[in-house]
């Protein structure tokens, strides 16, 4: 690796320029759909079907946003979504870390065999269990409630168990043993030592969980029916069904639905990317 002081050869400069051009061009392609979304959301309806289409709105209509968002009770959908997402997130973080602790820091017979089962369920397409699951929740009278969406999260998620276990394994065992000698219970070790030492990976799990449940459409579609129980994903689809070609309103609402994710992403990027790397690269 050449240090900064050494001057680059003409060939190296040329290849640097090519790299920046390619990356810059790629970035434009990546960002263009979002630009197009924002631009459409601010256009008056009459300008949307103009030919050729405008890349930037000639006339900016901010009122598209309040107009579109008051067509349906999006505040109720927002509240439902936030409630479901938080309940799922709490369950997945808490339960998965408890389970992962037993799989990484405790020694017991059957540990490895059982962990293979965890890995196998990670690979399972959920549809194969979906119909009986639907019938179980129907028998329990939980269809069209939030229970079928929240309850499974409180049994732990194999993907997060795997992620947390890998992280817990990197901690030194001496620290646990020292704490036990000092009179700390095993559970105390988990609560007072392992969890505080694992903040980055707990953050990653929390963000993944938030992202997944915020975007989730399939399960709400199957389990929720009444409009007052809709999540944002269902509300958005309902809105699309009703205002199918009002692309400015559709883009405005879609953008608002995406916004919390984008904001969370920008503030927690570090953990997000660390977490992704930790799962995929091993």
């Amino acid at each position: 690796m050449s240090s900064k002081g050494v001057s680059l050869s003409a060939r190296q400069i040329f290849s640097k320029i090519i790299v920046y051009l390619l990356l810059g061009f790629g970035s434009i392609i990546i960002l263009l759909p979002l630009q197009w979304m924002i631009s459409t959301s601010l256009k008056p309806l009459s300008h949307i079907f103009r030919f050729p289409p405008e890349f930037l709105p000639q006339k900016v209509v901010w009122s598209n946003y309040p107009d579109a968002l008051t067509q349906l009770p999006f505040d109720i959908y927002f509240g439902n979504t936030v409630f479901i997402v938080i309940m799922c997130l709490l369950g997945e973080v808490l339960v998965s870390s408890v389970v992962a602790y037993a799989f990484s820091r405790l020694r017991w017979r059957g540990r490895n065999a059982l962990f293979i089962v965890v890995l196998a369920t990670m690979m399972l397409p959920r549809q194969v269990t979906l119909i009986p699951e639907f019938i179980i929740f129907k028998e329990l009278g939980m269809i069209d409630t939030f229970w079928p969406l929240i309850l499974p999260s409180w049994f732990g998620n194999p993907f997060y168990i795997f992620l947390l276990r890998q992280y817990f394994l990197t901690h030194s065992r001496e620290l646990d043993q020292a704490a036990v000698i000092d009179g700390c219970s095993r559970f105390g070790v988990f609560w007072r030592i392992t969890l505080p030492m694992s903040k980055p990976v707990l953050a990653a799990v929390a963000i993944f969980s938030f992202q997944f449940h915020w975007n989730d459409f399939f399960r709400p579609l199957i389990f929720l029916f009444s409009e007052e129980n809709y999540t944002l994903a269902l509300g958005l689809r309902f809105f699309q069904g009703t205002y199918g070609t009002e692309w400015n309103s559709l883009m405005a609402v879609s953008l608002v639905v995406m916004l919390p994710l984008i904001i969370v992403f920008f503030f927690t990027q570090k953990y997000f990317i660390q977490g992704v790397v930790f799962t995929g690269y091993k």
Partner: protein
Amino acid sequence: MSLAQFLPRKGAITTLNVGYKRGETVLAWAMVSPWVAGFLLLTAFPMVASLALSFFRWDILSPPKWVGLANYVKLFTIDPLPMHALKITVLFSLASIPLNIVFGLAIAMLLNTNIRGLAVFRTIYYLPAILSGVAVAILWQWIFSSDFGLLNTALRIFGIEGPAWLGSKIWVLPAFVIMRLWSVGGGMVIYLAGLQAIPTDLYEAAEIDGANWWQRIFRITLPMLSPTIFFQLITGVIFTMQIFTETFIMTDGGPANASLFYLLYLYRQAFQNFKMGYASALAWVFFVAILLLTLILFATARFWVYYEAESDEDN
């Protein structure tokens, strides 16, 4: 198999001497019990139940009726749609997964050239990977609009009149492939981390030996990254085959079933027609199809996935 593998290895001797502590075992089972309960209630039992259901005809309202293999006979021979749906789902995956891997790798390699602004580029490329679901599907439906959409407007700049995309039997699958390429950053971040972990002395040694750029890519970079690529391939198959939301929102399987992905068909049978027995058979065929694809990939792994000798300590 040799006898040696049943003997305790060096590192395991301490475990054997100490044995398992009773208190620790009890605590461990208590701690994993939520997952065990969830596994039994929401995975193991439903799997067995759906296999059993696949031999019945059941509309939920009236009691189930035993029909033997009739659902499977219908699925493979009478109803043309399941195999059509499976075919286009596999076709889509065969296009989408390799393209995502190739582009993801290419971008990661560009980012790994000691450039300035790495964090900014990484953020930009990764951003779409966090977005998915209905909002993204609606956005792309608008992008693919034939007259007023972004894609055809951009193509017109180059003098190309784009197809009707979602309205075209031929172009609807490529449209879905293009849409999925937008989130290429998800894999890219992982490859980038893998690239950064390759020891630089490998490249330095190769350079001294006179290896050119291509040789370095094919002899060092790709072999070193192959476990990562393999992992992405496996998870990619499972994730990509399950495409549902996009087709549900954007095309509803059309035009003329050209984007009738397997799960959309399963959803219709189960939750619109309430053919729970038939849908269970569909689910099991899908499960076995994914399992077979994954096993085939695992079988090929020994020819191209390169594991370092020391890596067997993992897990």
